[in-house]
């Protein structure tokens, strides 16, 4: 490369060459640091991404049937959706659970429900992802107990726990306890996992929800990676070595509508994280440097109007995720704006991934868009913008400090309002919504066969809980809850007492209440 004539620079003093071409973007191949082009040399030629549809509704029994159905239809991993009471650490018969049981996911109030959820599913052979945050360690303990019942050694278990509490304060808002107590619980799982579950990802550092709350792609990327940095710092403080746990930190990104921006985002993510782990943390193991991620197509982009258009949106978004090198993928169903996925709709969503994998040819070459002038430019600019945010949050004192100051929340609220204004003014087109409204009743109509979840789930779960409380050894339950409280008050890892409690059939609500008594609960200051 010839040296630039000193007379030609940008305003900031960056020298400008007479001509830029392919040789100016030397990018290491996939599998080579910093993994911009992918974490493996062969990517999908070696192993396809996992087709993992997020799923759960009504009762553990009905959810189990849906899991068997999806596996039979060719999905290659499970992903558990829990209902709001479970996500918030309430049993199905709690006063606040009224009307909510089974509506957004599967209710799991005790180990009994977890046993039903995985009936007939060999946990040693099927990897399981669980979307659970505040009570993540409790549900993980239940899952580990079921694995033990099945005779599967914990060292064989493959899967992921979302367990990313920072993004709850930022975006998804399913928090229970205050930030520092929650971070202690997350660190307990990272420490426990490093010792006992070497093939399981104890955390899925997530940007999906940040994006769904209305952030830009850059904010999604920056806040996610900075959350990752916060988890690393806490684990190091605990005394773990970076290479002991970093290989099992996983990530979860949105696959939104702007095709090339999304591919650039994933490439920038790998590049930034590799540099962070090597330079900021001195990681020695290559596995610590390789960012692995699950992607989900953007729920917030799917429309109520002309719902069949959503099949197209999901297909394009899924393709961006695949071209961006995702390790695992969920595709949304066309009825996203109406209800949880109906059986017909979720089948189309799964077929979308299968058509992509087996008919489109895009899995044949790793990072096939690498070298595109547009994409390489976007990758660099996304990386630079994300790094600016990361530095800004560093200067604020870290992500917890930034959350307490309302910084990421305010950025997201502003981006979300700006986006809505663009739609209102017509500057941004949403097909079928603010342009191309067809007025043809068949294409406008709400999808038939919508999944309807009534109150039978509540009655079933409530009856089960009453029977459970009557037949279990309640003295033993109280003993385990006391031991858990003592561990929570001290510095011991909470996973062993959690395992004891779940095996005694203490309920989720009882366990979370024991922790609420120790840690207190969190109230946010809303930022509009």
């Amino acid at each position: 490369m010839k040296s630039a004539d000193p007379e030609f620079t940008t305003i900031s003093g960056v020298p400008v060459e007479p001509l830029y071409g392919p040789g100016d973007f030397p990018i290491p191949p996939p599998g080579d640091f910093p993994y911009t082009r992918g974490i493996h040399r062969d990517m999908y030629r070696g192993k396809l991404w996992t087709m993992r549809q997020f799923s759960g509704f009504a009762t553990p029994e009905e959810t189990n049937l849906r899991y068997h159905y999806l596996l039979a239809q060719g999905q290659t991993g499970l992903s558990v959706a829990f209902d709001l009471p479970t996500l918030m650490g309430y049993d199905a018969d709690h006063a606040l659970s009224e009307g909510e049981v089974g509506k957004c996911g599967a209710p799991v109030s005790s180990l009994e429900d977890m046993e039903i959820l995985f009936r007939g599913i060999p946990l040693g052979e099927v990897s399981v992802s669980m979307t659970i945050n505040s009570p993540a360690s409790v549900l993980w303990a239940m899952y580990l107990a079921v694995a033990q019942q099945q005779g599967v050694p914990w060292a064989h278990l493959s899967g992921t726990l979302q367990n990313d509490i920072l993004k709850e304060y930022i975006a998804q808002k399913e928090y229970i306890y205050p930030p520092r107590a929650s971070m202690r619980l997350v660190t307990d799982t990272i420490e426990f996992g490093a010792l006992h579950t070497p093939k399981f990802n104890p955390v899925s550092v997530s940007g999906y929800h940040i994006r769904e709350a209305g952030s830009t792609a850059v904010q999604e990327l920056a806040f996610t990676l900075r959350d990752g940095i916060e988890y690393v710092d806490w684990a190091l403080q605990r005394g773990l070595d970076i290479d002991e746990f970093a290989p099992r930190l996983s990530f979860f990104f949105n696959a939104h509508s702007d095709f090339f921006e999304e591919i650039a985002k994933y490439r920038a993510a790998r590049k930034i994280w590799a540099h962070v782990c090597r330079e900021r943390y001195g990681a020695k193991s290559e596995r610590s440097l390789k960012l692995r991620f699950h992607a989900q197509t953007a729920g917030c982009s799917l429309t109520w109007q002309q719902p069949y258009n959503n099949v197209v949106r999901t297909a394009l978004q899924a393709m961006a995720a695949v071209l961006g090198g995702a390790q695992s993928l969920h595709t949304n169903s066309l009825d996203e704006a109406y209800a949880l996925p109906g059986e017909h709709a979720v089948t189309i969503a799964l077929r979308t991934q299968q058509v992509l994998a087996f008919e489109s040819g895009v899995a044949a070459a790793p990072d096939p868009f690498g070298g595109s002038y547009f994409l390489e430019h976007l990758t660099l600019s996304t990386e630079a913008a994300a790094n600016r945010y990361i530095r800004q949050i560093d200067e604020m004192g870290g992500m917890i400090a930034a959350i307490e100051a309302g910084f990421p929340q305010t950025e997201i609220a502003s981006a979300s309002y700006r986006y809505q204004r663009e739609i209102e003014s017509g500057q941004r087109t949403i097909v079928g919504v603010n342009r191309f409204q067809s007025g043809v009743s068949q294409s406008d109509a709400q999808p038939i066969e919508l999944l309807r979840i009534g109150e039978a789930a509540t009655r079933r779960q409530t009856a089960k809980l009453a029977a459970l409380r009557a037949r279990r050894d309640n003295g033993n339950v109280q003993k385990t809850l006391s031991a858990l409280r003592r561990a929570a008050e001290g510095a011991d890892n909470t996973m062993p007492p959690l395992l004891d409690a779940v095996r005694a059939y203490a309920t989720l609500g009882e366990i979370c209440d024991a922790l609420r008594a120790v840690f207190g609960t969190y109230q946010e200051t809303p930022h509009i």
Partner: protein
Amino acid sequence: MAKPGLDGHDRGAKVIARALRDAGMEVIYTGLRQTPEMIVNAALQEDVQVIGLSILSGAHNAIVPRVLELLREKEMTDVMLIVGGIVPDEDAAALKRQGVAAVFQPGASLEAIVAFIKGAVPVA
């Protein structure tokens, strides 16, 4: 603007609250995880003319009738109740028969919501 029940999805509620403020209305946002009792009490204390409920969790058939019942009990039936969120057509029709003034489903424009409120509620 209230978020009843356990649902934590507040993007819509916050965007609409801001749009209503931009349109000159006084808006109180209750924050998350409010019970019907908390919402009606806040509405009474703040002497609001409109209550907006944002519900994306599917729990609307349990929550909304309870809010309507409380408004009747406290003789606040001049307060207009509107609902926004994931509410299927059949449920929306049923809620309107019970006294909800409007149900805004996904894709509803800020303009339409502002216009509806301005048209239905006299300037205080």
